Every structure is written in C-alpha cells, then in structure tokens.
C-alpha cells in the first residue's frame, strides 16, 4: 500500500483509470450562495456498475452537489453530462425522466399508499381508461422479486419501518429503469441487519450496471460497499480515490484535516493550567441520552476552551445540547460552579449563565426578517423580560460596540439579517449571546459554512473571550481548528467519549487515529 496521499493536493484524476466511459460527469461545478461558495470547481465522475461514495463533513458540499445533479439547485458554472450528452436539469422530475433516481434519508414516497402504488405511481398500467390494479400489482411483485425483497405489495407503505420504505424507493427506481441511483445517507436510521439487506440490493443493482452514488458518514459502511470515492471539504474537491487504496486514516485526514488556505497562527497564550482543587464551571458526570450519546464525563474550567472532536454523528452535537438542556439527559448529572443543576430546559441553563450557539443557524437562531439590531438584542431583552425594554440609546450603543468588535459587515444595525452572509449572521448570533454575558459559551460548529476570514475572526474572538475568563465548549468538524484554539480536546466516536486529551498532548495524527480507530477493526 502506498503512503497516505497528501490531502492538500487534489488527487490526479488520471491516477484512477476509468473502467469505461462515465455515465455521469460533473465538471467544474460552482454554486455561489450569498457570502459563501457552496461549491467551488467540483468534479465528480460516475461509471456504470460502480458504487461511488461521496465523502465529506457537514457543510463540505455533498448535499449541494447532489442537488446540483438532480436538478434541485441551479449551478453557476460547470457542466453535467449524462451518457456523454450535456444536460441541465431544472426540476427533479427532469432528472428522474433522464434516469437519475434519488433515495433520500427521509423517504420521499407517500406513506398513505400501498407499496404497489408507490412503485408504479404516475406510470400505472391502464386498461380501458382505468388503472389496472392487477397488472400494477404484478409489476410491483416482479420488481420486488428481482431484488429478492419479501415485501407484501398490497401493504401500506407507512406500516413498514424506514428501512423497508427505502428498499421500496429503490424498487421504484428499478421500475423506472434508472441508470443512476443516488442514495443520500440511506443508512442513518437503519440497524445492522437492515443495512446488510440494503447493501445486498445495492450490490445486485451495481452488478446490473447501475451507477450508484452513495453518501454516508459511516466509514465502515463506505469501505464495505464502495468501489471508489470522491472527497469534498469546504465546498472544494479534495480528491477522487479508489476505496481499496485509501487507508482510513488518510480518508479522515482528507475529510477533516489541513485547511487548503493558510490561516495565520493565532497569538495564543499557553493553556492556562487548572489549579488543583478549583471548582469547574461545569462538571458533567455520566451525562448521556439513550440512543444519542453514551454517558460521558466532561469538565469545563473557567477560562478554558474545551473542544469536542469527532465525525458527524459521533455525538458531538448531542453532548452539547445536553449541556444546554436543549435535549433532556437520560443519565448522569451536572454541576455548575459546584452546585448540582437539573438542566431540563434551556431556560434553566440560561439562568445559570450558559449560552448555546446552535449548529442549525437557520433553524434555531437567525430571525431573518428582523434587523441586525433586533437580532443582537433579542436574548438580552428576553432575559430582562418584555416589560422592561432596553432604552433605545443603550441598545444602539451595545449593538454598535459589538458590530465593531466582531467586524460585522455591512456595519449597519438596520440591515435585515437575512441579507447578510453566513459568516456575518454567525457573528450577529454570537453577539446576541455575548450580550447576555454568559459564563459558559457552547459553540456548535460556529465556523461551518462561512468564509475563511470570518472563521479566523471567530477563532480569535473565542481565544480572547477565554482570556477574559469565559469558559467555552467548541464543537467543530475541522480538527485543525479544534487543536488550534482549544486547551483540551474530548474525542467522540460512535456516540461515546473515547478520549480526553490536553492540548499539549494532542496532535493531529493522534486524534485522527482515535477517531478512525473504531472504523478499522472489522
């Protein structure tokens, strides 16, 4: 086996000899979202009869690339060819008609109809102007038996578990003779047996010459099923590899490793030592939630930045949400400043001086139709109670101060938040929580999907806040970032904590190894 390829350089596509002409070739795809390039010059080739894994962390651009392929998003530059001819799909129905079928994690079928109906819907056999139910059922049965699936075609789709529904969605794709099958995180909610069944069907389709694009964040599954893979990071292509030739540690490194652009090293004081006997600001012992995160111990001391590292789905977000009371823990207990606290709801946490910046910026933070000013003041006002409005002048001053401190652009308190770029929206949300003067700040992927400059500013700010005595929990998909700004790193894998390292002991290789290890013992 060759040494791990350097992840900073995109692999030479010629290094992977094509088995035949690609059925799908996406070249130079670029999609510009306000303030950030979601995809920047990304290419992808799919060959008939292969399972191709599309890899990357949250925000790497996997879903965007799939949406560009299936006609959901228009792309600003680049070309898509299908069977050698250039195509530009404008609706999912177009893509489907051309032979590209997509099976989503949340199955896009009708749960209220039967399995048969879901397979033939829109293409039902008809006789004398009416739907021929018997012929429909025959056709569904034939497709299901081709895939060796034992599903009653007359049963209602919604009565089946998600796994079976996904198999029905694949059966529909087979019925419409798809040449390309996109599986978007199909295994996220399946158990081992269901995954095995799914893979059996995927392999049989591959052997029939269907090109399969497979998205998953479970490395083990990717190595089991895929022939080749394309890795994305931050909207850019890292490389195209043969699965058998890419060791897992190299893959993890490719996904979360070195930033392509260089960031200046942070001026960072050595990690503050924790004084013996100091009471941690937050001490969680055995904190866990059934099915989401195994019980874990976490301690956050005053003035320290604790990083949570792990792959998507490792439990890093889940653990953070437990510390804020956004989800209710099923085990363990939490002490804040030495006093036991039951974090049942975010209100409890907020009252104890904990603030939480969610990874779901759009869903859980941004109020796009309010101005920057109103968004910044929202949490503080909520804390004061609505009967005690913040005096206008005091509010203006606070907003102006934070706009300046965080370098929000445009520096206009009256701008609507939805017109700002992702990075600037993030700064506004950060300002919102900073105004409440939290003693513990939980940041879940604060730098995801924002441009490099804003990233660096947020990192600097975190370091500065910690210097002033605030405690920070910092979750990031980018390992380098975690290592750069954290005093200690908690490593998570498969929903459980596997290590708690001091920053001085943690190296990129060491942590990558810890994260990947679980995936190498099979």
């Amino acid at each position, binding site marked *: 086996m060759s040494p791990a390829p350097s992840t900073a350089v995109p692999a030479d596509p010629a290094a992977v000899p094509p088995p035949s002409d690609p059925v799908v070739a996406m070249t130079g795809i670029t999609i510009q979202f306000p303030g950030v390039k979601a995809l920047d010059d990304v290419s992808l080739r799919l060959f008939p009869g292969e399972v191709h894994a599309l890899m990357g962390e949250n925000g790497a651009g996997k879903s965007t690339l799939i949406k560009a392929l299936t006609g959901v998003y228009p792309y600003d530059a680049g070309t898509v060819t299908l069977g050698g001819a250039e195509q530009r799909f404008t609706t999912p129905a177009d893509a489907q008609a051309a032979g590209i079928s997509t099976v989503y994690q949340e199955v896009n079928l009708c*749960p209220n*109809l039967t399995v048969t*109906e879901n397979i033939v819907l*829109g293409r039902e056999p008809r006789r004398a102007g009416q739907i021929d139910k018997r012929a429909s059922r025959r056709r569904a049965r034939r497709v299901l038996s081709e895939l060796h699936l*034992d599903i009653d075609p007359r049963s209602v789709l919604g009565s089946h578990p998600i796994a079976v529904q996904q198999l029905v969605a694949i059966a529909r794709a087979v019925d419409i003779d798809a040449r390309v099958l996109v599986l978007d995180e199909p295994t996220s909610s399946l158990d081992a*047996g269901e995954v*095995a069944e799914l893979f059996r069907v995927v392999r049989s389709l591959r052997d029939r010459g269907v090109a399969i694009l497979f998205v998953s964040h479970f490395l083990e599954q990717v190595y089991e099923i895929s022939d080749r893979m394309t890795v994305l990071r931050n909207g850019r292509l890292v490389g195209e590899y043969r699965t058998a030739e890419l060791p897992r540690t190299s893959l993890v490194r490719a996904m979360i490793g070195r930033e392509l652009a260089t960031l200046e090293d942070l001026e960072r004081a050595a990690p503050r030592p924790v004084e013996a006997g100091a009471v941690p600001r937050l001490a969680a012992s055995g904190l866990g939630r059934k*099915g989401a995160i195994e019980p874990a111990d976490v301690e956050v001391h005053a003035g320290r930045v604790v990083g949570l590292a792990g792959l998507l789905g490792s439990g890093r977000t889940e653990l953070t949400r437990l510390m804020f009371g956004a989800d209710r823990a099923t085990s363990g207990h939490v002490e804040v400043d030495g006093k036991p606290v039951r974090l049942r709801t975010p209100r409890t946490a907020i009252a104890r001086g904990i603030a939480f910046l969610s990874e779901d910026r759009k869903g859980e933070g941004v109020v796009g139709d309010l101005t920057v000013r109103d968004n910044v003041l929202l949490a503080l006002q909520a804390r004061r109670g609505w009967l005690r409005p913040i005096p206008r002048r005091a509010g203006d001053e606070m907003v102006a101060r934070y706009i300046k401190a965080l370098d929000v652009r445009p520096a206009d308190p009256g701008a609507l938040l939805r017109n700002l770029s992702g990075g600037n929206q993030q700064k506004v949300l950060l300002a919102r929580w900073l105004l409440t003067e939290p003693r513990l700040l939980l940041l879940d992927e604060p730098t995801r999907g924002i441009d490099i400059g804003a990233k660096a500013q947020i990192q600097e700010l975190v370091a500065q806040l910690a210097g002033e005595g605030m405690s920070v929990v910092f979750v990031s998909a980018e390992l380098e970032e975690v290592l750069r700004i954290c005093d200690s790193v908690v490593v998570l894998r498969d929903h459980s904590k596997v290590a708690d390292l001091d920053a001085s002991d943690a190296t990129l290789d060491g942590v990558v190894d810890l994260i990947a290890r679980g995936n190498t013992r099979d």
Partner: protein
Amino acid sequence: MTVSDTRPPEEQVPAPPRPATSRPGWQGAVHRWLRSTSTGSSTFSVLVTAVLLVVLFGAGSIRYENFGYPQVALNLLVDNAYLIVLAVGMTFVILTGGIDLSSGAVVALGTVMAASLLQAGWPAPLVIAVVLATGALLGWLMGLAIHGLQLQPFIVTLAGMFLARGICFAISGPSIPIQDDLFTTVAINVVELPGGTFLSYGAVLALVVVAIAAFVLHRTRFGRTVYAIGGSESSAALMGLAVGRTKVGVYVISGFCSALGGLLFSVYILSGWSLHGIGLELDAIAAVVIGGTVLVGGRGLVVGSLLGVLVLGTIKALIDFDGGLNSWWTKITVGVLLLVFVVLQRVTGRNSGTAS
C-alpha cells in the same frame, strides 16, 4: 428524527428484515387485515361510521314509533341530497390536505343565479349549464391562486366565500321563487321503489355523484395523485406526478359540486335566496371528517362522506322526532361527535403507523 442505532461491530450479525407486523393472535390478524389494502385503515374508519349510523338509527326505531320505517331512512337521502354532493366535492379537497370554505356560499349563488335567470326567461337546461360552469370557474380561480401563488387554501376559499356571497346580494337581495316547469317537475316527481317507498331525483343524482367520485378516486391516475398529494405533496412532486394540475383540479371539482348542490337545493326548496346555505360548508366538512377522512389529507373514502352526511341527517331526524328538544341539540351532538372522531382518527392513525 432518531439518531441511528449503532451497535458494536461484534453484534452485527445480518438479521432478516423486520416483518411488517409482528403482533400475535387475533389482534395481529385484525391489524394485518386493516393494513392489507391501501384503503384498509380508511375502511376501518368508515366501518365505525357505519356502525354509528346503524346504532343511531336502531336507537331511534326503539325510542320513537314510526322511526323504523324504510322511508324514514330514504328520506335521509332525499333531505340531504345537496349536502351529499357538497361533501363529495369537499372530500376531494380534504384528501389533498386542503379545505374549501366557499362551498356554502356557492350553493347560495347557485340558487340565486338559477332563480333569477329562470325568472328572466332563460331555458332551464341553459340555466343549469351556466350555474355549473360558474361553480367550476370559481373553483378553478381559487385553485389557481392556491397552487400558482402558493397561498393558504383557508384564506383563498374564505375570500371565495365572501365573493360568492356578495355576488348573490348583487344579483338579488330578497328571495326569488322558482316556478320553472323542469325544476318543479323534478321537485315533485319521485322514483318509485319496491314496498311503496321512493327517492327523489335529487337523491338518485347524489348517489350517482358518489359512485362517479369513488371511481375517479380509485381507478384513475388523477384520483391516485389526489391521495399521493395528501400523503406527501413534496414526495408526489419528486415522483414526477402532476401536482399542480391535480391541486387545481380538486377545487374545480369542489366548485362544480357546490354549484350542483346549489341546483339540488333550489329544486328542494324552489327558491333562490342570498342567505341560503349559511354554514353549509361547515356541515360538509363535519360530514367528511365523521366519514373518516383525515383533515391533513391522504386517507379517507368518499363513501365515508356519504355515511357522514347520513349520520348528521339521522341526528337531525332524531331531534325532530322527539319534538321536545331544541334544535340546537343537533349542533351540540355534532360537535361532540366531531371531537370523538378526530380523537379516533388520531388513535387509529397512530396504530397504522401513518400518523403525521
């Protein structure tokens, strides 16, 4: 959303896929039967409505003499023919997850248009055609607004309701009697049935409408698309179904049915008046829901709506027979029944795994 179940690798023995149902005994058998067809769970709701109808009717027969006569049962169809037609149109709309609040007002518009056009000397067949076309046109416009502009069906049809009611008043404030030959003939004559019983032409027409609707819903692509949209509109679109055309189509059907209901109502009452049919759309919605159709769409049968109307009619008849009860008791009973049925839907929906 649930977080994936990641077992330690050593436990990853490939297990057979979970069977669809795993309940033992007779309950499992009933469950499997209920799930055995696409309409299984809907059939169950309709059966409940049918049982309720039989119980209500049986109770009436025991309590009041003369209630048990077959003609009393047939009169339920005769007296509620217009409501049955209305409920059929409403069923289409509700199956897609929409609502049509305009239908009562369109009934009034139908009566007023029919009465005033006949008064003006138009031939009856032309009047009928114009009224039906007007209803369909109104429905088409509302459907276009709902689908094309992505507006809420509630608001659009509320606007349609005010519009239709307003047009009624613009045409004529006071009630206009209908003396046209065709209308009066249809109103007076009946279809003789064995045993000295009879049905009105209106009732027969209503039953025909139900039959046609059932065919369209279950045997045409349009009908299956109606159910698919109710199940998941975004999925239906991703599956390449004609979502837009179908959504507009159900409002056209509902508008047409409302106008037809208006014609039946004018035959039944032989007058056109702007204040006819106030709140009728709510009766239709109640009938559809009591008939087992789920308000979020995707589940229900048009036969259920027929039974729903008959349940409402029976309650009204029971209270009429009693004579001592205030007619407001009808409303109270219907209110309670509605609540019970919605709760029932929630419970059975959960059992069959399709609850939203």
